[in-house]
């Protein structure tokens, strides 16, 4: 034993190695003791918790185990359960899911055209990947490879499997899955080896997705793209002479004139001369998760520019700009989403010129976009506030004007910090898309379920549809929230 009392100099001769802790402090017994039964109160809580778990499972698990997957109606399900397991017993009737899952996913979209939403969904991951995994190239490529494989598989599935079964006849365009899978692989290669060209695809995605989902002549979307090209050209030409603001203004005016007035005159003749169109699908066929995802993604993506402007406006020193921004944000955040949806369905017709009439879905999307813009503005404001003050000062001292500083330095960082908040807002918005059933759209929760229940075969079924929709929502939202948490943790270490 070392004598380390005062005045005694001491040097250790040999270092002591690691030893294992005493027996009572290791292993399962210690874990049980410390975590479950460390005090009388804890022991009681453990017992109560175990009882609660037992109670819930004992009700749910037997019901699930007595599932019927193969039946034509609810009555038949019940008969099979009685037959197999005895009188007075209930079991889950998943046969409904087998019969109607396609309606929950696609709504009333024509089965022969299922490949289009599937492709649009797969391409969405390609478009989002650069944003979600900005610095992690490996994760990005892994995700995209998985999407390619799964997407290709899904395409084959819908064209060869689902559509023929639903329509009763094989589909004509059997070559489609092959061509599209090849396209996906090509896109994967582009993402891996030509990242800059790939960004071009990301920019084009919104137009591609719109065209895939709604169909129609390809020249319509092409003309919309031409409008953006026009915008860029006019800006490039005029801004050196008139200044950035005036140049931007003129560019916007030119583009708007093109879109509203001139575009129609060009796309019509083009379509007649070079017909290239996808079969057009009316908005009222959209339903189920297709509808929810479309509304959610469009709202978030479309609201980003507006929310950035609102966030900047809210922070600004200029009184009028600030008041307008704050007023808009507080108004949208102060009213329930339902009232905005009802505005879309009932009131928008008052506010727009007489006799304009467009799709209820588009009206809903517009208002949900405004809704998302207000919430995203708050998130981005938080991101701007989290930026160190030094960034603004560095940008100023480099001589960058306001908009350049924003575009090159401030916004990229603020948006990156805001991504967890943006994902949270998206999760909330995605859950809120279930409200569109209250304005007559076919959301998966109430819309499709009431359609399914209207069928005499499935009248009176209630647990199974809710469990199905609930599980799908849970998987999607939980996945996104885990991703957002992981991202937040990574950002915190980056910005320490």
């Amino acid at each position, binding site marked *: 034993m070392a004598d380390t009392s005062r005045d005694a100099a001491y040097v250790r001769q040999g270092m002591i190695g690691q030893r294992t802790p005493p027996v009572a402090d290791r292993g399962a017994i210690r874990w049980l003791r410390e*975590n479950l039964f460390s005090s009388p109160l804890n022991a009681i809580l453990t017992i109560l*918790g175990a009882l609660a778990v037992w109670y819930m499972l004992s009700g749910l698990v037997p019901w699930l185990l007595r599932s019927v997957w193969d039946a034509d109606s609810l009555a038949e399900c019940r008969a099979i359960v009685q037959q197999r397991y005895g009188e007075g017993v209930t079991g889950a009737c998943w046969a409904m899911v087998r019969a109607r899952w396609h309606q929950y996913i696609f709504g009333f979209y024509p089965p022969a055209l299922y490949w289009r939403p599937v492709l649009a969904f797969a391409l969405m991951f390609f478009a989002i990947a650069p944003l979600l995994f900005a610095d992690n190239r490996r994760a990005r490529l892994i995700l995209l490879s998985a999407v390619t494989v799964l997407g290709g598989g899904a395409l084959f599935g819908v064209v060869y499997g689902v559509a023929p079964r639903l329509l009763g006849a094989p589909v004509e365009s059997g070559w489609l899955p092959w061509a599209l899978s090849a396209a996906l692989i090509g896109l994967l290669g582009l993402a891996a080896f030509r990242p800059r060209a790939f960004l071009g695809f990301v920019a084009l995605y919104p137009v591609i997705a719109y065209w895939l989902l709604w169909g129609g002549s390809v020249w319509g979307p092409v003309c919309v793209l031409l409008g953006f090209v026009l915008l860029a050209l006019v800006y490039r030409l005029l801004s050196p002479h008139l200044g950035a603001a005036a140049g931007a203004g003129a560019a916007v005016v030119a583009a708007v004139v093109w879109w509203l007035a001139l575009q129609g005159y060009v796309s019509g003749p083009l379509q007649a001369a070079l017909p290239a169109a996808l079969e057009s699908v009316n908005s009222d066929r959209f339903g189920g998760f297709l509808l929810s995802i479309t509304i959610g993604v469009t709202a978030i993506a479309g609201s980003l520019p507006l929310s950035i402007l609102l966030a900047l406006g809210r922070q600004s020193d200029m009184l009028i700009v600030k008041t*307008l921004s704050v007023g808009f944000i507080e108004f949208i955040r102060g009213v329930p989403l*339902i009232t905005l949806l*009802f505005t879309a369905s009932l009131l928008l017709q008052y506010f727009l010129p007489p006799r304009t009439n467009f799709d209820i879905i588009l009206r809903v999307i517009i208002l949900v976009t405004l809704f998302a813009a207000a919430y995203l503005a708050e998130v981005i404001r938080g991101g701007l506030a989290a930026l160190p003050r030094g960034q603004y000062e560095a940008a100023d001292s480099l001589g960058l004007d306001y908009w350049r500083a924003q575009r090159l330095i401030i916004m990229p960082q603020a948006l990156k910090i805001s991504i967890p908040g943006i994902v949270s807002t998206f999760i909330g918005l995605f859950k809120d898309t279930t409200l569109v059933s209250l304005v007559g759209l076919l959301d998966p929760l109430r819309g499709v379920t009431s359609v399914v229940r209207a069928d005499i075969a499935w009248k009176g079924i209630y647990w199974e549809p*809710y469990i199905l929709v609930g599980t799908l929502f849970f998987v999607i939202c939980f996945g996104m929230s885990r991703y957002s948490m992981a991202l937040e943790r990574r950002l915190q270490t980056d910005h320490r």
Partner: protein
Amino acid sequence: MAMATEAPKDRFRLSMLVYDTRYRAVTIQVIVLVLVLMGLSWLFNNTVQNLALKDRDFNFGFLWNRAGYDIGQALIPYTNNDPHFRALLVGLVNTLVLAFFACLGATVLGVVAGVLRLSRNWLVARLMTVYVEVFRNIPLLLWILLTYVFLTETRPQPRDFRGEDPAATMWLDGSMVVTNRATNIPGPLFENGLGSVPALGLNVSLNFLAILAVVAASIWANRIVLWRARRIQEDTGRRPTTWWQSLLILFGPVTALLWALGFHLEYPELRGFNFAGGIALDHAFTAMFVALSIYTGAFIAEIVRAGIQAISRGQTEAAYALGLRPGWTTRLIILPQALRVIIPPLISQYLNITKNTSLGIAVGYLDLRGTLGGITLNQTGRELESMLLMMAIYLTISLIISAVINVYNSRIQLKER
């Protein structure tokens, strides 16, 4: 030695409007204002044109017409002869009452779940995590529908409780029952009641006013007791035990008053085809209350957990190192700091609850949106006026709540350099 001269005065040029920082802000604001006014006037113009085309005018006179529809759960007196305005009030009261109880339920549930989530007990912590994650990631509407379906489809009928050997039994020793028609709980009855007094179009019960007054007085008296205890502690160092005094003061007078008023509970009984007596809670209300409480409770649990974890471990260690016991450490050090972090998002959740009450339409709960924005709107065809009025009311409520948050924030701000 150079003399400081004044900066040369530039002659005013038009391009200064854009480039000179003195004028630039004004220019931009003027442009923005002009654009916004143009937009607003375009919208306004369209509205006027559309109204003219549909041969309608814009006035709120319809609010004073006879409503002509019944409202199942009306907490203030209402018949279908009353004007739409009264229906609006009934809806508003329904909204606020549901919001109040849901806020209460969600807070209790959320605080318990949040604290338990941090417990050392592995099982309980995991269970709370499961609760929070499951309820946060599934839409509120689904929970509402699920609860409503559970209540209306799986609960027994009233007649199943009848007879010598009933198929179903009441809960809590015969005091509460859930049938597929309603939830019946005991209701208060006063034998020697003071009656009620009509005021502001309501029948204000003097009993409840008396109880309220006595409770308020008790709370105030309790504060005096605590203040006195604090003075004694400051002077002598020993804090007198006050818990029995507080208990007596808080519960004594109220109990005495209730006894004097002849208070007893009226239990629901099976009479005829249904249960009568006590309070019958509409399934729409119960479903909304339960779903809102449990759903928002999950979010509040996360807020509470984050608030407690935001307090760095060093604070606890410093308190322990000074010799403070864990109970006092929590009360004096952790809780005050945690509340600062917890309360603003908590009040935001209350705002969310208030807005989410509008989902009651899915189960037929007639809140503000159900009456003004629903039946009244459909019957009178006054879409524009009803919607604008409804949005204005919601906006007012949410602005009040936001103002509360801001006031709280500015008052408890930690002073920094």
